[in-house]
C-alpha cells in the first residue's frame, strides 16, 4: 500500500512527486511499456539471441587462492567430443591492456584474461569451447590444472592482512574532532562490520560475441554500453566505432554489469580465434568470483555529545577490503559526514589487500555500509542519553551540508521523519528494550535514515516524429527494471503531445545516441533531460512546419504558435484546422521529423564527448555550484524476535522517501521497495562465508547465499515526500534506485536492540548472535 502525502502540493509546471493526473504524462502511474514483452516471454535478453553456428564456451576457474598455475593438462579435454578449442594462458590470443573507468591508461601493455598468477580462488584459468553447451561442460571437467600454492590472506580478519593502505582522498576533517570527543560529557564508541555481499542478479553474467572482419558485436547484459564498448575496442585494438554492444533487456545488475570483465574478453577472443560466434555464460557459482560483490567493511564510530544528545564531535575510521592487484574503495565516510550537524569531524579510511576478486559496486556502494555505522551509532547515543531515537535525529538535523558547507538543494528528511512516524505509529513506541511483546515474540521498533547523492552527467537522445504520427526515441541507455523505457516514453509523449502508446522507445544498442553509465541513480535525470530537449526541438520543428510551410493547412492562419495534444495539432484559440500529426506531415510532404537532444556543454569537443560517454571522469559533482544535492529517506521497521530461538522476522516497514519529483510513481515505488527488500536481506541473511583453509567462498550459490524470498518479506509501505528539485535535474527528479537500501540494515539492527536489548554491530543479524 502506498500513500502520497504530498499529493496536494503543486509547485510550478511539473507539480509534485505524484503530479501525474494522467498516467501517460511525466509523473503518471503508467504501467511498464516493456511489461507485455516481459510477461509473455517475448523479451529476448542478450544471450538469448539465436545465431547460426553458435559455439559454447565454459570457464574453468582456479581452486587455490594464491600461487601459480604450474601446468594445465588439456589432453583429455581437447580430445572430448565436440570440442573446438581449449583456451589456456598459453593458447589464448594476446590482448592489449585497457584503460579503467576513469579513463586512466593501463599499467600493462598486454592483457591475458586467463591467469597464470593466481590471486583469488575462482579466477579464470582456462576455457573450453565446443559445439554444444553439454559438450563444453563435460570437457571442461576433464581439464587437469596443477598449482604451486602460496599462503593466502583470506579476508580482513586474517592475521596477515595488516592495517592496509591509507586512502588520503577519503579523509574529511573539520574542527578538532579528537579533542572535542575527549572533552564531551557523553561519549560512545563502537565498531561496526559488514560482510562480503553479492549483487546476485537473477540473470547470470554472460555474452555472445561475434566477429565480422574487424567488427565485433557483443550481446551482453550491460549497465554501460559505451563504456564496455570502449574496453572491448582497447583490448582488441580496433576503433571504438567497430564495437557494437547490444543489451535490450538486462536481468538485474545492481552495479555488477557496468564493466567489461575478463569472461567477456575470453568469449570475444574465442570467437575471434574460431571465426564463429561464441556464447559464454557464467555458472551461478562463478558469478560469486567472476566479478566483485560488495567489499567487506569495518568501521569505528565515536560520537561525543552533550547530555541533551547534541553532537559535539564525530570521529570515524573505516576499512574495506580490496584485491591483491586491483583497487576498490568503498567510501565509508559518505553518510557519516553529512547526516548530522557537528562542529568537529574526522573521517579516515584504509583499504586492505586480500586474496579476492576486486570488489565492485553493489547498490549504494559507500552510502550503504556508511549508514550502517552512523545510523547504528546515533541509536546507541539515543539510549545513552535517554532520548527517543527519532527525537535525537531531529536535534542533530543538518540544516546545510556540514561537509561542503552549502545549502541543500532540497532536503525533505524532516518531512520523511514526520510522515513515516505518523504512518508507523511511532508515538506508541515504549522506549525500554524488551518492553513490547506478543506472546513469545519480542517486538522491536527501529528507525534509521538514508541518503544518496544526486549524480549528474550529460546525455544524448534522438526523437523522431514519424509519418504515421507516432514518435520514436533512441538512446544507448538501458532498462534493467528501473523503468527507462517507460519514463522516456512518458517524457516524449508529454513533450511532443502524443499518447504514450504512440511512442516507441529503443534502448540498449551502442549505435544509438549515447548515454554513459547507468549507475549511481543518475540515468533517469540524464535521459529525461536529453529526451525532453530532443522532443522539444522536434515539437518546435513540427509547429514551425505547420506555420510556415505553404502546403500546411495552418499556413493561412498566420499563427505565432500551435498546440499539439493527443496527437493532434490545432491553434490555441481553437479557430482553424484541427488535424492529426500524420495529416500535417502528409500535407507538407515530410515522412519524418528528427531532432537530437544533447545536454553536453555547447563548446564540447569530440574528445570531451568520448570521455563523457565512455568514462565517469566527467560526472558533475553533487556539490557543484551553490548547492549540495541528495535524496533522503527514513525507514521505520518492526521486527519480531523469537525469545527462545533468536529468529528475527521483519513484520512491518514504513519508509518515507525524498527522491524529488517522481517521473513515474508506480515504478519508483517498485524500486524503493526492491531496495528495502535487499536491505532486509543485508540485515538478516546475506554473507559470503569463507572456507579459511582454501580462501574460498563456500556459499557461492542461491541456496546457500541467502537472498530474501517472498516468505521473508512483509507488506511494505512507501511514502513519497519529495518535491521537484530543479537544481538536481531538468525535470526535478533526484535519485531513486540506490536510495532506499540505505538505512534499512541499521533500522533493523536498531529494532532488534529495542526488541532484545542486544546491540548487533556485525551483519547479518543471525540467530546465534542473539541467543
Amino acid at each position: 500500500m502506498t500513500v502520497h502525502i504530498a499529493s496536494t502540493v503543486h509547485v510550478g509546471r511539473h507539480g509534485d512527486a505524484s503530479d501525474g493526473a494522467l498516467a501517460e504524462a511525466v509523473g503518471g502511474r503508467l504501467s511498464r511499456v516493456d511489461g507485455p514483452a516481459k510477461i509473455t516471454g517475448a523479451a529476448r535478453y542478450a544471450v538469448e539471441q539465436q545465431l547460426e553456428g553458435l559455439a559454447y564456451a565454459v570457464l574453468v576457474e582456479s581452486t587455490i587462492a594464491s600461487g601459480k598455475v604450474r601446468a594445465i593438462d588439456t589432453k583429455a579435454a581437447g580430445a572430448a567430443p565436440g570440442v573446438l578449442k581449449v583456451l589456456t594462458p598459453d593458447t589464448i590470443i594476446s590482448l592489449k591492456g585497457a584503460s579503467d573507468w576513469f579513463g586512466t591508461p593501463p599499467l600493462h601493455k598486454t592483457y591475458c584474461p586467463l591467469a597464470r598468477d593466481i590471486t583469488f580462488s575462482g579466477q579464470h584459468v582456462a576455457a573450453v569451447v565446443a559445439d554444444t553447451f553439454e559438450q563444453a561442460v563435460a570437457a571442461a571437467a576433464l581439464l587437469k590444472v596443477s598449482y604451486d600454492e602460496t599462503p593466502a590472506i583470506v579476508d580482513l580478519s586474517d592475521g596477515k592482512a595488516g592495517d592496509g593502505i591509507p586512502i588520503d582522498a577519503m579523509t574529511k576533517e573539520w574542527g578538532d574532532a579528537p579533542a572535542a570527543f575527549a572533552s564531551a560529557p557523553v561519549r560512545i564508541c563502537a565498531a561496526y562490520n559488514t560482510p562480503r555481499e553479492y549483487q546476485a542478479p537473477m540473470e547470470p553474467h554472460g555474452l555472445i560475441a561475434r566477429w565480422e572482419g574487424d567488427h565485433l558485436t557483443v550481446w551482453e547484459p550491460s549497465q554501460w554500453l559505451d563504456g564496455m564498448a570502449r574496453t572491448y575496442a582497447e583490448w582488441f585494438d580496433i576503433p571504438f566505432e567497430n564495437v557494437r554492444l547490444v543489451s535490450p533487456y538486462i536481468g538485474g545488475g545492481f552495479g555488477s554489469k557496468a564493466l567489461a570483465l575478463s569472461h567477456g574478453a575470453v568469449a570475444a577472443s574465442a570467437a575471434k580465434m574460431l571465426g564463429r560466434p561464441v556464447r559464454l555464460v557464467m555458472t551461478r557459482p562463478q558469478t560469486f568470483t567472476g566479478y566483485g560483490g560488495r567489499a567487506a567493511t569495518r568501521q569505528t564510530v565515536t560520537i561525543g555529545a552533550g547530555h541533551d544528545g547534541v553532537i559535539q564531535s564525530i570521529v570515524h575510521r573505516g576499512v574495506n577490503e580490496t584485491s591483491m592487484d586491483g583497487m576498490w574503495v568503498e567510501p565509508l565516510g559518505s553518510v557519516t559526514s553529512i547526516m548530522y550537524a557537528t562542529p568537529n569531524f574526522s573521517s579516515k579510511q584504509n583499504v586492505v589487500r586480500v586474496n579476492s576478486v576486486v570488489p565492485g559496486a553493489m547498490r549504494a556502494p559507500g552510502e550503504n555500509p556508511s549508514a550502517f555505522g552512523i545510523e547504528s551509532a546515533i541509536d546507541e547515543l539515543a539510549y545513552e542519553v535517554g532520548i527517543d531515537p527519532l527525537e535525537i535525529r531531529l536535534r542533530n538535523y543538518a540544516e546545510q551540508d556540514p561537509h561542503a558547507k552549502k545549502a541543500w538543494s532540497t532536503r525533505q528528511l524532516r518531512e520523511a521523519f514526520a510522515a513515516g512516524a505518523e504512518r508507523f505509529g511511532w508515538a506508541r513506541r515504549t522506549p525500554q528494550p524488551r518492553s513490547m511483546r506478543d506472546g513469545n515474540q519480542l517486538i522491536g521498533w527501529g528507525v534509521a535514515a538514508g541518503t544518496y547523492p544526486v549524480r549528474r552527467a550529460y546525455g544524448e537522445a534522438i526523437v523522431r516524429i514519424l509519418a504515421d504520427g507516432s514518435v520514436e526515441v533512441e538512446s544507448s541507455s538501458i532498462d534493467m527494471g528501473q523503468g527507462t523505457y517507460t519514463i522516456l516514453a512518458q517524457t516524449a509523449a508529454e513533450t511532443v503531445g502524443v499518447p504514450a502508446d504512440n511512442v516507441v522507445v529503443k534502448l540498449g544498442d551502442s549505435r544509438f545516441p549515447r548515454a554513459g553509465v547507468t549507475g549511481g541513480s543518475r540515468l533517469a535525470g540524464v535521459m529525461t533531460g536529453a529526451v525532453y530537449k530532443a522532443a522539444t526541438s522536434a515539437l518546435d520543428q513540427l509547429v514551425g512546419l505547420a506555420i510556415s510551410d505553404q502546403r500546411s493547412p495552418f499556413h493561412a492562419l498566420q499563427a505565432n504558435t500551435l498546440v499539439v495534444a493527443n496527437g493532434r495539432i490545432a491553434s490555441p484559440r481553437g479557430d482553424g484546422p484541427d488535424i492529426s500529426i500524420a495529416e500535417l506531415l502528409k500535407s507538407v510532404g515530410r515522412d519524418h521529423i528528427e531532432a537530437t537532444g544533447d545536454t553536453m556543454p555547447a563548446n564540447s569537443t569530440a574528445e570531451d564527448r568520448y570521455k563523457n560517454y565512455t568514462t565517469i571522469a566527467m560526472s558533475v559533482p553533487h556539490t557543484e555550484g551553490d548547492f549540495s544535492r541528495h535524496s533522503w529517506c527514513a525507514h521505520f521497521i518492526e521486527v519480531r524476535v523469537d525469545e527462545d530461538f533468536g529468529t528475527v522476522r521483519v513484520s512491518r516497514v514504513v519508509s518515507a522517501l525524498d527522491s524529488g519529483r517522481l517521473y513515474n510513481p508506480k515504478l519508483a515505488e517498485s524500486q524503493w521497495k526492491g531496495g528495502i527488500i535487499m536491505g532486509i536481506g543485508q540485515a538478516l541473511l546475506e554473507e559470503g562465508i569463507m572456507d579459511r583453509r582454501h580462501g574460498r567462498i563456500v556459499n557461492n550459490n542461491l541456496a546457500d547465499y541467502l537472498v530474501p524470498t517472498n516468505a521473508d518479506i512483509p507488506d511494505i509501505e512507501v511514502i513519497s515526500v519529495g518535491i521537484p528539485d530543479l537544481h538536481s535535474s531538468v525535470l526535478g527528479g533526484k535519485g531513486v534506485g540506490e536510495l532506499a537500501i540505505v538505512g534499512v540494515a541499521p533500522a533493523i539492527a536498531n529494532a532488534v536492540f529495542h526488541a532484545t536489548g542486544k546491540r548487533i554491530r556485525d551483519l547479518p543479524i543471525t540467530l546465534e548472535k542473539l541467543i
Partner: protein
Amino acid sequence: MTKIPVHLDINGTHHHLELEPRVTLLDALRDRLGLTGTKKGCDHGQCGACTVHVDGERVLACLTLAAQTEGRTITTIEGLAREGELHPVQAAFLEQDAFQCGYCTPGQIMSAVACIREGHAGSDEEIREYMAGNLCRCGAYPHIVAAVRQAALEVAS
C-alpha cells in the same frame, strides 16, 4: 554421446528432437527450440526462474531432463496467453508492477498459475509461502503477492 529421439508436446505444438540424454528440458527449450521465455538463473533448482508446467504441474526445467518429458504436455510462458488474450496472472503482474528486470518473471508467473490451481492462494501468508521457491532479486515480492491475490479472485469468479 548417442542421441535419442525425444517427442515434446510444448504449448500445443509437437516437436521431434534428437537429443543427448543429458540435455535438460531447460536447455532444450532455450537452445534447441528458441523458447527463451523460460529463464536460466542458477541451473541447480535454487531460483525458480525456469519454472514450467509439465502435465499441469509446476516443474523446474533445469532439474528435468528433456527425455523425462517424452509424451507429456509442457506449457511454457510463451503458451500461457490464449489467442492473444493475456492469462489473468499475466495481466495482474502488469497491473501490479510485479516485476522489474523481468528475468524471474516467467517463472514467477508459471508458479503463480500453479499456486492458484493448487488452491494455495487463499491468503497473503499462503501466497508468500507457496511462491517462496521463486527468487526475485529486484524485490517485487509485495507486488507479486498482490498480483497473485488479484488473479486468484479473478480465476475464481
